[in-house]
């Protein structure tokens, strides 16, 4: 395995290069993009494709968890909050558009969402009003969760709350938000959520062709988010997150404000989750508190864990796999699914702490690289084992 020593200067510039993606990572990205954008749309019917589109919206959350939990070591059990915030922002806009005076003339107060009318509310609440505007809505989908995460993150991390305590608090926040949404039925649609969504800026989102277009928008956004996450991972910030997970004090006494870096990771995960939530609302056509609370939040952590919490691509595959299994299992054995999911989580944590990506990296990749080396011995340089963040 000893490679001949190269002169220092040229060795340093090649070995310490920090390319955006290594060749194998480009291949992974290409495979993922091909499957999402070509293979699945070709082999699946409209209904199944829409279902996969729904799964992929959870992949945004899993992606955020890779950054926040995998790299940064900050386990959030409340990502459903941010998924919900994004989803509700989008749903509020769509609901207002569906509640034109024309459409709601049978209500006692026409022009407001139907559930408000049922709850004897006669005027649109102030916080609903800006959601008449699509640009505001899109901005809110990004800014609102980021702000919310910033407040939580700053409050927790400045006080050095971390680990289990942070996880428990995020879980409590998810529970609080659910209770709030369910309790304020007149303003939020309550337990049923916001339903009967029809058009996006005049474009009917309920048709098959709209579902098809939204699927591709969703896939494109997901790949954009992966690329951004890859940028973060490759930056010094990504390495600082890994360093922090390992030896927080060492990072602090190297002159970094650890709390700011944790807050950044948490905010980024929140924004990813919110984008997923907004795309969920668009593709599924409603939003309800059942995607906000503790159970969905933990399920989302399982997706990241099964796929591999240290791998951006793994998180997406994990999400697809678990959801695919969920759908097929719960179609045949609905009562067994939750046990299966629990068993899966325990098995992954005990046997494969780095999930599918870990299995791939330990067993498959070494063989592949050996094959590649045999095929192209001149090109394949010595591969530095174990890239840091993985």
């Amino acid at each position: 395995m000893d490679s001949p020593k190269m002169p220092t200067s040229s060795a340093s510039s090649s070995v310490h290069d920090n390319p955006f993606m290594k060749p194998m990572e480009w291949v992974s990205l290409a495979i993922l993009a091909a499957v999402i954008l070509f293979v699945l749309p070709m082999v699946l019917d409209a209904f199944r494709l829409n279902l996969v589109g729904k799964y992929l919206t959870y992949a945004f959350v899993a992606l955020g968890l890779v950054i926040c939990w995998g790299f940064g070591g900050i386990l959030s059990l409340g990502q459903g909050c941010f998924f919900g915030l994004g989803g509700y922002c989008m749903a509020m806009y769509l609901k207002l558009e569906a509640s034109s005076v024309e459409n709601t003339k049978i209500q006692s107060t026409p022009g407001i969402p139907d559930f408000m009318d049922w709850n004897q509310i006669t005027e649109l609440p102030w916080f609903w009003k800006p959601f008449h505007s699509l640009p505001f809505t899109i901005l809110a989908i990004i800014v609102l969760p980021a702000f919310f995460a910033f407040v939580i993150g700053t409050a927790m991390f400045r006080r050095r709350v971390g680990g289990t305590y942070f996880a428990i608090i995020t879980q409590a926040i998810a529970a609080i938000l659910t209770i709030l949404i369910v309790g304020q039925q007149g303003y939020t649609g309550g337990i049923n959520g916001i339903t009967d969504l029809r058009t996006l800026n005049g474009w009917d989102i309920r048709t098959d062709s709209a579902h098809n277009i939204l699927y591709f928008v969703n896939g494109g956004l997901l790949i954009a988010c992966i690329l951004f996450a890859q940028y973060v991972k490759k930056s010094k910030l990504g390495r600082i997150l890994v360093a922090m997970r390992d030896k927080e004090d060492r990072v602090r006494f190297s002159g970094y404000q650890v709390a700011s870096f944790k807050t950044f990771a948490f905010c980024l995960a929140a924004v990813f989750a919110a984008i997923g939530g907004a795309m969920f609302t668009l593709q599924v056509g409603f939003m309800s508190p059942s995607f906000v609370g503790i159970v969905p939040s933990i399920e989302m952590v399982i997706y990241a864990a099964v796929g591999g919490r240290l791998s951006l691509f793994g998180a997406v595959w994990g999400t697809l796999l678990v959801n695919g299994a969920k759908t097929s299992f719960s179609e045949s054995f609905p009562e067994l699914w939750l046990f299966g999911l629990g068993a899966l989580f325990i098995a992954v944590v005990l046997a494969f702490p780095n999930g599918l990506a870990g299995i791939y990296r330990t067993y498959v990749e070494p063989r592949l690289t050996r094959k590649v080396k045999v095929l192209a011995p001149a090109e394949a340089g010595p591969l530095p084992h174990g890239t840091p963040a993985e």
Partner: protein
Amino acid sequence: MNAAMLHSPIIGESPDAPKFLLAVESLTVSFDGFKAVNDVSFYVDPNEIRVIIGPNGAGKTTVLDLICGRTKASAGSIKYKGTELTKLSESAIVQAGVGRKFQTPSIYDDLTVFENLEISFPRGRSVFGALTFKRDGEVRDRIEEVANMIFLKDQLTERAEFLSHGQKQWLEIGMLLIQDPELLMLDEPVAGMSVGERIKTAELLNQIIVGRSVLVIEHDMKFVEDIAHRVTVLHQGKVLSEGSMERVKNDPKVVEVYLGH
């Protein structure tokens, strides 16, 4: 801005600190009524190697914790170049020019030696700065230079977890060197090292003290004699004795509580 701060003249800037790089005065910290450090005062000159010795539980590590801001003082003051450190955050203290090495090697196992050193490079310490940080020639050259000093030139691409114990200690010293602190604090830098590694470490320390002050906690008396300019002996949270190694060794109080054993 940082560089200007680091290289500003030490002497004669502030009337409070006429000549000392570090002035610790009446420093006290109590944990639930137990005074781990009790009314400790000492002064470190520029370019001095000061070694703190003392039996277990004397409060040596706590003193370092107090200086670098890990523990907040109950009373007293720590002035570094005339700046009061007790009110600053940990990162601000580092940026003022104080570096700290921990007792057990504190390095990032999952990163390579190069990346370990890179994180300590004093640039891009804000969130945005870290996102846009570029690994340019200056960074590479500095890292290779330091790697050379700490005997890890050939391990730069290796993951830090695979280093030997001694190499890990050197790596952490290297991470501090990259920060280029004016006051370097080392907590038992040769603990657990082989004889050969000890000699190399002493050599390394003698090399890196140029232009900075070093505050060392150490138990190994041979090593202390090799490097110390002055020694401060702590016992039960108080300063028991202070002076040259020769003087301290012959102080009957020190012999009784510490060296006599």
